[in-house]
């Protein structure tokens, strides 16, 4: 590991020179810093890279009791009697002696580390000691002071940013680039602020509006568009590791899109960043939190949930808390806390104990790696919420209409109950003959029931009953019985014990019509009535109550009157394979009351069996309500009332979202240090806390709310620097601090420290108004420079750290996709709601233990929604977007790579989504153009927001002509090119022309200028 830091400062450029040109390892030249260069920062950087591993904050690794990361530690007299640093006297300082020692045994760093300081570095340390060896706080933790804006007499600056940039450029003997042309600026602004290219009319308007306020006007307009929030939410969702699946092995879907919508709205509403922070980290702890504040807390519910069999919930809950700590530190503090999970941080002063104090802050939310993602917040649509308001009074009104009956029918009910004082009974009948379609056995048991061996196919059982005396049958009952020999104890043959009776026929010489079928229970969708209709697909089943006995009661149209010796034949058809009955018996009831008895819900007949004095209030109410529902005069008012009540009860939320909820005091968890990061290997107990390094909150209770407030406290300098730098990075491509993920001592120092501090203080001064801050960045002259670069300039400063040209870097995966859809007119502007599934290639594979990876593409406009709405499945992210470096969002992503690969070319050339866009664009070009040149111009305006140069026009027209000529001989190929997958051409369109335009549009969509900002 040590070689990493070594190489970083010293070796890379040399390696470059000798090993060859490999971009991933390319380093920009060390950033030039402000003239107010901080000696101690340079010293700290040298010491951090070469010495802290053994003489730094980690006391477990510390050698010779020397720590060089604090003034006191460096100057302390050591057990050996030496002092590493004697202020003012480098020659007496053991540090310098050891660094210079010719003796390999004494020289530091030890030769086996492979580290060695250059003479210049040693000189720098000596100068620092000579000047007093002050060890001020690391630059990023230092108090934020608003620097003075350099006073320069120049026409160039638009705002303060430009003075800082120009000051540096003048020192370097450089000049800013000229302003980019107007149409390119319109496109750059639209892409940076909304993620979408501007409409041509907008570009023309902006070109004409060339007064001093033109840029501001366009910027304000763009910031006002709802596409602004959709674009900027994407960056935040990378940080929040938002996805529509729960992660780990089966990666099941997770419903959490309400959080994504919250982020989009927060950006569009320009919620100040301090509130944005507090709501997400601790919205639930605010007094009387609003619905939106609770939704915001889903931020930390985006951690993975593991529902694989045999996993320990506590292990993965603990893993989620670790992720919350790391993410919080990374997002707000630009600090890598992960090291301190297992040991004291080697380079930044965060101890393992402090790490688990932070862990303790997050350790008391209710969620604990449950598959159902509890606790959830239910979210209701506006219409539903209105109904929730209007239905209760409506129910009360209907209840008042029903109320008179409650007294008027009371006597009748008492009389009715008398009828049921004894329940009607039935008697078991035993068949004289049993047959079935399948071969295997049917066995008659002692209790009159029949046990049927499992066969597997569909089946039909036929039974004959001969009555030895005159019998009247008002109700014929089939009782299904559990049996230990059946799968899942039956009563059916399917693996779980279920069956489906699809048809039931009764015959006494001739067929008997069955009027009604009732059951004491049925599986949803498998009603008893399905057993007596003629439809073989419908039937009665009991899934949900397997392994128990149930009764199907059949009421003939007329009571069946059988004289002695008559035969009753019954046929039970079962048309679902395996879903056949395993054990059952028949019974008959001649008591005519049985008909009404089986018509009652089972719950009501059970209540009737309870002595009136023994009934609960609920039971008495249920019975009274039932009686109202069958009493002729109250039947209708009852139905109205019950229906309204049911509608209220049946309402399901539009969606749910997992939220943070603090455990009650009695259930609070204790936090222990986890030794080597192992959740089973616990050390001492710790209380909630914030590393000393950061501004500790003054609140009495140190909870998430206190932590969130401290992060955005005006006295906390780090967050403002980190956030200002992140927005800078998003606009300019590289942060003023290039290592935007590491503001600690291993990170790079800012290229323009004064500018960074001014921006950070401005962000605070603006009360964290993000739109105002972005406006500042994009209206600056620095931003408005042309991006053109000479070879020499590029070689000296490939990443534009000097800021003497405009930003130019690859668009994000979402932007590339959205742009292709937008310029071709396919893009849907529908906002919010459940994630959508645009077309993706069929892979014919399933996820391990999970469902298909393939999905059925959404219909209609959902195929063409912005990328932010695409279903984000962590184990299998949308392939064309991951090819353009979209992360899988398993963990917080601080910045995406911006690669340039042949697989990307294949996506934009051949992915049906992109080719469909080419076809759609082609039809627009064909329709708009009277000449080929007009069509090409239209294409350039739509795609690139500019007119083509003469040469470009000539080349593209030539391409059109060549393709057109080739395709004339191949009308079938032309039709395919123009219509697959978009669909038939409009009436009258020529397929060869449409195909030629499609090839042209395909090339326009692949232009470098479409993929790199200009």
């Amino acid at each position, binding site marked *: *590991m040590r*070689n*990493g830091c070594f*190489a*970083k400062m010293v*070796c890379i450029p040399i*390696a470059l020179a*000798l*090993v060859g040109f*490999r*971009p991933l*390892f*390319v380093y920009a030249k*060390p950033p030039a810093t402000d003239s107010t260069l901080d*000696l101690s920062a*340079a010293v700290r950087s040298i010491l951090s890279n070469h010495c802290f591993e053994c003489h730094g904050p980690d006391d477990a690794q510390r050698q010779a009791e020397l720590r060089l990361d604090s003034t006191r530690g460096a100057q302390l007299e050591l057990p050996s009697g030496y002092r590493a640093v004697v202020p003012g006297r480098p020659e007496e300082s053991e540090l310098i002696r050891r660094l210079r020692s010719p003796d390999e045994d004494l020289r530091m760093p030890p030769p086996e580390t*492979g580290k060695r300081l*250059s003479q210049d570095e040693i*000189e*720098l340390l000596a100068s620092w000691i000579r000047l007093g060896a002050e060890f001020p706080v690391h630059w990023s933790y230092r108090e934020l002071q608003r620097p003075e804006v350099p006073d320069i007499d120049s026409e160039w600056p638009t705002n303060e940013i430009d003075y800082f940039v120009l000051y540096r450029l003048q020192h370097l003997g450089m000049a800013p680039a000229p302003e980019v042309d107007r149409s390119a600026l319109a496109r750059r602004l639209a892409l940076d602020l909304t993620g979408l290219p501007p409409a041509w009319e907008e570009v023309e308007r902006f070109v004409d509006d060339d007064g001093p306020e033109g840029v501001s006007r366009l910027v304000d307009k763009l910031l006002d568009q709802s596409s602004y929030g959709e674009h900027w939410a994407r960056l935040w969702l990378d940080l929040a590791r938002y996805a529509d699946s729960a*992660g*780990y092995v089966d990666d099941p879907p997770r419903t959490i899109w309400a959080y994504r919508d919250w982020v989009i709205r927060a950006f569009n509403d320009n919620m100040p960043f301090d509130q944005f922070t507090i709501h997400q980290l601790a919205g639930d702890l605010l007094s009387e939190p609003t619905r939106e504040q609770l939704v915001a807390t889903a931020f930390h519910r985006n951690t993975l949930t593991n529902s694989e*069999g*045999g996993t320990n919930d506590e292990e993965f809950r603990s*893993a989620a808390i670790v992720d919350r700590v790391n993410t919080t530190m990374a997002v707000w503090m630009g600090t890598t806390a992960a090291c301190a999970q297992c040991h004291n941080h080697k380079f930044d002063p965060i101890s393992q104990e402090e790490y688990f104090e932070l862990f303790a802050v997050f350790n008391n939310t209710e969620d604990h790696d449950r598959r159902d993602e509890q606790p959830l917040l239910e979210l209701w649509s506006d219409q539903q919420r209105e109904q929730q308001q209007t239905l209760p009074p409506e129910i009360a009104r209907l209840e008042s209409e029903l109320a008179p009956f409650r007294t008027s029918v009371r006597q009748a009910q008492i009389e009715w109950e008398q009828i049921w004082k004894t329940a009607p009974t039935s008697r078991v009948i035993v068949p004289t003959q049993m047959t079935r379609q399948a071969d295997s056995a049917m066995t008659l048991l002692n209790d009159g029931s029949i046990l049927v061996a499992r066969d597997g196919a569909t089946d039909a059982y036929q039974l004959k009953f001969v009555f030895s005396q005159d019998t009247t049958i008002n109700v014929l009952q089939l009782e299904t019985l559990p049996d230990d020999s059946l799968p899942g104890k039956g009563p059916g043959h399917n693996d779980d014990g279920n069956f489906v009776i699809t048809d039931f026929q009764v015959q006494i010489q001739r067929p008997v019509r069955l009027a009604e079928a009732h059951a004491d229970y049925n599986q949803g969708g498998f009603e008893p009535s399905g057993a007596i209709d003629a439809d073989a697909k419908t039937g009665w089943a009991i899934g949900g109550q397997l392994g128990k006995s149930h009764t199907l009661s059949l009421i003939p149209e007329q009571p069946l009157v059988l004289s002695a010796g008559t035969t009753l034949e019954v046929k039970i058809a079962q048309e679902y394979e395996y879903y056949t009955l395993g054990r059952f018996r028949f019974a008959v009831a001649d008591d005519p009351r049985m008909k009404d008895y089986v018509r009652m819900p089972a719950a009501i007949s059970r209540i009737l069996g309870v002595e009136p004095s023994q009934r609960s209030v609920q039971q008495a109410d249920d019975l009274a309500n039932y009686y109202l529902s069958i009493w002729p005069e109250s039947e209708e008012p009852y139905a109205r009332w019950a229906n309204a009540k049911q509608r209220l009860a049946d309402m399901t939320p539009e969606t749910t979202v997992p939220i943070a909820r603090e455990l009650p005091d009695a259930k609070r968890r204790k936090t222990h240090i986890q030794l080597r990061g192992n959740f089973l290997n616990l050390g001492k107990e710790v209380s909630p806390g914030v590393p000393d390094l950061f501004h500790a909150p003054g609140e009495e209770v140190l909870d998430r709310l206190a932590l969130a407030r401290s992060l955005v406290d005006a006295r906390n300098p780090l967050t403002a620097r980190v956030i200002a730098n992140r927005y800078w990075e998003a606009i300019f491509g590289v*942060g003023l601090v*290039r290592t935007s993920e590491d503001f600690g001592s291993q990170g790079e120092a800012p290229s323009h420290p004064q500018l960074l501090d001014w921006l950070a203080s401005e962000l605070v001064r603006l009360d964290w108004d993000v739109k105002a801050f972005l406006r500042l960045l994009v209206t600056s002259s620095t931003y408005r420079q042309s991006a*053109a670069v000479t*070879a020499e300039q590029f070689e000296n400063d490939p*990443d534009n750290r000097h800021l003497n040209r405009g930003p*130019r870097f*690859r668009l994000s995966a979402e932007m590339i996709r959205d742009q292709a859809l937008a310029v071709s007119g396919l893009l849907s502007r529908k906002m919010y709601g459940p994630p959508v599934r645009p077309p993706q*290639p069929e892979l014919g*594979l399933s*996820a*391990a*233990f999970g469902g298909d*990876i393939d999905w059925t593409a959404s219909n209609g406009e959902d195929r063409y929604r912005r990328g932010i709405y695409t279903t984000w499945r962590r184990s299998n992210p949308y392939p064309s977007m*991951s090819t353009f470096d979209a992360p*899988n969002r*398993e963990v917080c992503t601080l*910045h995406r*790579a911006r*690669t*340039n690969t*042949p697989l990307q*070319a*294949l996506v934009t050339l*051949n992915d049906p989504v992109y080719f469909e866009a080419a076809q759609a664009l082609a039809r627009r070009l064909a329709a708009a153009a009277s000449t080929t040149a007009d069509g090409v111009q239209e294409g350039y305006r739509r795609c690139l927001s500019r007119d083509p*140069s003469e040469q470009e026009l000539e*080349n*593209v027209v030539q*391409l059109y002509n060549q393709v057109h000529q080739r395709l004339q001989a*191949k009308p079938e190929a032309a*039709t*395919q*090119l123009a219509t*697959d997958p978009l669909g038939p051409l409009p009436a009258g369109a020529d397929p060869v022309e449409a195909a030629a335009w499609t090839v042209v549009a395909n*090339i326009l969509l692949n232009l*470098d200028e479409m993929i790199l900002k200009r």
Partner: protein
Amino acid sequence: MHASVEQLQLSTRRHFLQRGGVGLGAMALAALNGECQGAVSAPANPLAPHPPQFSPRAKQVIYLHMTGSPPQLDLFDYKPELVKRDGQPCPAEFFDGKRFAFTSATPKLLGTPRTFGQYGDSGVWMSDAVPHFREIADELCLVHSMTTDEFNHAPAELLLFTGSPRSGRPSLGAWVTYGLGSESENLPGFVALVSSGFQPNGGNSSFGSGFMPSHFHGVQCRSKGDPVLYVSDPEGMDRPLRRLGLDTLAELNRMQAGELGHPETLARIAQYELAFRMQMSVPEVMDISRETQSTLDDYGAQPGEASLANNCLLARRLVEAGVRYVQLFDWGWDFHGTNPSEDIRDGLTDKCATMDKPVAALVRDLRQRGLLDETLVVWGGEFGRTPFREGRTAASDVIGRDHFPDAYTMWLAGGGVKAGMSYGTSDELGFPVADNRVHIHDLQATILRLLGFDHEQLIYRFQGRDYRLTDVHGKVVHPLIA
């Protein structure tokens, strides 16, 4: 302030650039330590081949992963004592206080129902489930003392391939391609092939690039549909037409490069040309119908299927064409005994019949073509299976074993490993490792060593921390190296 300090600092930095006194090894190493912040925009090919730190024994890797984990005690690790004690309760010392995925009550020991024998000049033990492996017995280096930390599929597979049980880190293939680049100009450096219908347990992360850029992500090639996503031209687009379009595109992009001067534009032209070549070379290399019938028969391959047999043959074709790392995943090795296909008797026979023949053919084929010495072949699961019968299915007719991380078998072949060797043992019942324990991180360190890397120095810096495949663990198992 401190104008002199600024000068001093600048001169120091200049000095860094001019300095020359560092040895070649350190330089190559330094190059590996490069940090990618995503902001770098210079164009060049990060997959260009580059030499490792030491002289390598292997130049490329074919990794055969049996997703789900095959039962070592029924294939390679013969335990007569366990057979003798079949049906006895599992000794408490091996069960109490341990966690198993699907077994909670004291289970019964399960001796193998399979017949074992010794094969090859080296007398390697193998069961009758893998008869074709007998032919390659003397090529194999079996490690019977593998251990891992994880007993669930996904974390175990991620630990195996990324060095960490949680997703987010680069996989072995990504590390190898990052370290060595690719020998092929027209093919990806790292290819993944999946058979039996399911993605690996770790999803794409098992062949992903984690926090490295997507250059290093394994490219999943398929025998059905597009062999690489979007490699086929749209319907109606023939090659000359595509060429016409790309010629114009290159011309337009050159104008853009001339106007704005960004080298990335030129790099993009090159990537489009590479894509155009890949459209030819990928379908070509993926087309096994170009092989002779006798080769197809050796592997049991049938053009058009997504079988392990086809993938083994493809692996050879890919390696031959210069692909650095080929990762195979074959689903269906999770022998719990929850259904007859997971029974260690007939179920295992049937499953092995789809595997041992093509894998043996691959090793022989590599040998015959002179590729085996420079190609490391690795075979194994993400963990092993218990010496006892799994709890859930203990009462059924089907016999299976639970997940077991403490001792299991993997094998390596070619690429500088000792052939015909058995290394390490489990105890007489197959529970703990008795000697020469090899942890997953040790295996990773050894694989990297064979490819010419010190695993402690193959480093990638991400978000403020240096990362290695082996995290902070791992030691090279030198006895495995020839």
